[in-house]
């Protein structure tokens, strides 16, 4: 009966049922073990998120008391936070909206060799990443990593013992982004900040584990921060999608490429050292190359045009951050009608073309937009923008810098999808 209960919530979730079913089977196996602690869990189990904590998150592949004590609390937290998340790994991950309002550093990743995206492999990768991070931090200590020892100790606590700054690293699928049609999966890397003290004795370790568990029970989100997002957000072209533009998620796409996974865009937000370590781990595990993704002025201009057209409610003032003050005087200026006209035309084209084909906006409207912008600026300040290099653009949707920094503002997942789509397109282009 307990497995039945668990089955119904998992079937209610649409896209993650594939992940949820192995989870529920492991949970069924764990069913007899601590029955007493699970009765409060059953009472609150009508929510679909009950399947998630019942199937015990990956970080604690534990069956001990500390783990089960946090299941009801985690159930409450998960139930409050999400409606469609049923995979336990995804319980760690914030939704796609959390991608916004953060400055991401963009990298381009060459195709990953032999990367599996099922839950088992993701757990393996999580452990491997944790081990790598811990090992690099503790060069002075012996590199005995307890992460490989999964008996009775959660990897989070062992990792917390070894490192001063890293808790557990988790790799899992990001929810929310899957909802866009035709978009393959995205992976997120979450690093949990550890407790402050680094104990040295066995007793201290137990205390450590309990403390970690308590902290996790208090609230999963404040502890862990979303470190990196690795994905391929390109949408399949509506008409005649070629193999090159296909999704990278399914590995068995081409005969040649069946060992490779294409996840070209990597967004990282962390310290440079940690970034370097994570990229190094990626390179060594999957035999790929992680390089900076720089945006040439051509692409920046294109992005500025596309994303200023997306905010229908914004006026011309929001379209160019530099001209924000100038736009106030635009009403009196005779060149501003050209700018407003170009903007309106692009917006109209956007609206009638529909969101899916927004990437197919005509080049000449983009040129007209830039030309109007330059003329407007020249008439106000006498500076020819065309003689200067475009290094940073700011629209209402996103700020992008030429050195590869991106900051999204929009909370709308469709808009975020558009932005990520464009970035992935750029990341997967082959440049010299």
């Amino acid at each position: 009966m307990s497995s039945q209960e668990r089955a119904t919530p998992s079937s209610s979730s649409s896209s993650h049922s594939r992940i949820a079913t192995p989870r529920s089977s492991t949970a069924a196996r764990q069913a007899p073990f601590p029955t007493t602690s699970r009765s409060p869990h059953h009472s609150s189990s009508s929510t679909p998120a009950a399947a998630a904590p019942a199937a015990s998150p990956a970080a604690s592949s534990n069956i001990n008391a500390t783990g089960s004590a946090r299941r009801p609390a985690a159930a409450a937290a998960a139930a409050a936070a999400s409606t469609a998340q049923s995979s336990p790994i995804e319980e760690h991950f914030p939704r796609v909206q959390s991608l916004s309002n953060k400055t991401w550093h963009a990298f381009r990743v060459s195709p990953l060799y032999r990367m599996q995206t099922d839950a088992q492999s993701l757990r393996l990768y999580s452990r491997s990443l944790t081990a790598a991070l811990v090992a690099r931090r503790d060069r002075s200590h012996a590199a005995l990593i307890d992460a490989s020892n999964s008996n009775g100790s959660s990897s989070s606590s062992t990792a917390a013992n070894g490192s001063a700054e890293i808790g557990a690293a988790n790799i899992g699928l990001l929810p929310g982004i899957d909802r866009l049609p035709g978009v393959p999966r995205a992976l997120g890397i979450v690093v949990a900040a550890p407790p402050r003290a680094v104990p040295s004795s066995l007793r201290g370790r137990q205390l450590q584990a309990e403390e970690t568990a308590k902290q996790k029970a208090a609230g999963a989100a404040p502890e862990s921060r979303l470190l990196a997002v690795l994905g391929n957000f390109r949408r399949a072209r509506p008409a005649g999608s070629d193999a090159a533009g296909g999704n990278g998620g399914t590995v068995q796409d081409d005969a040649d490429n069946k060992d490779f996974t294409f996840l070209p865009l990597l967004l990282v937000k962390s310290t440079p050292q940690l970034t370097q370590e994570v990229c190094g781990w990626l390179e060594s595990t999957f035999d790929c190359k992680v390089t900076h993704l720089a945006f040439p002025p051509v692409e920046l201009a294109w992005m500025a045009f596309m994303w200023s057209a997306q905010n229908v409610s914004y006026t011309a003032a929001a379209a160019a951050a530099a001209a924000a003050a100038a736009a106030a005087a635009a009403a009196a200026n005779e060149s501003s009608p050209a700018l407003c006209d170009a903007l309106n035309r692009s917006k109209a084209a956007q609206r009638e073309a529909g969101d899916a084909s927004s990437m197919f906006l005509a080049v000449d409207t983009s040129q007209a937009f830039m030309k109007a912008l330059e003329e407007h600026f020249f008439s106000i300040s006498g500076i020819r923008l065309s003689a200067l290099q475009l290094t940073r653009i700011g629209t209402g949707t996103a700020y992008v810098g030429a050195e590869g920094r991106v900051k999204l503002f929009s909370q709308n997942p469709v808009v975020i999808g558009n932005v990520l789509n464009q970035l992935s397109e750029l990341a997967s282009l082959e440049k010299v």
Partner: protein
Amino acid sequence: MTLLLYDKLPTQNLQQHATILLVGTHGVGKSTLAHALLAEQERANLAIQIRKVVALPLPTSGSASTRPKIDFVVFMLDMTSKLSLDLLKSAIQQVDIEYLIGKSCIVATHVDMLHLASIEVDEIDQLLLTYELPFLQINQLNEQQRAGIAQRILRQARVAVGRANHMTPAIVAAMERALVTSTLINDDS
């Protein structure tokens, strides 16, 4: 005032050299190309004189009468500067149509700086479609490329000036197109 081809007589020097005009904004690489052209003139068997200008039309003040007849015009384009494209478009319109048949070409510099590329390829395609000029791309830092481009320009200039026997730019252009159409016909049959 447009740059006319036939309003001046050819230079009466003993050397009978051709005059090449380089048109482009500041920083596009005219001096570098000029030095490369001068270095290659021996091998190309053509004595040349090079003039540089930032924007057309040429000023009609004092030195206008002593200017030689321009035989070949090279429009230069900087891939990292959008301004150069705008100036190029306006410059092409200032040039007599006689120049656009085999007596000019477009050279794009700074092509290796992809991370600073400011010009869309579509715009250049439009330009080429409109004017059908030979389009050469060069990374000016590379010596070999410089020499190669200089050779090509001088070859075109030789035909333009008339130093190549029985060859005019119009014939060359006609032959190019004839080659293309003949291959198409062969494919059909």
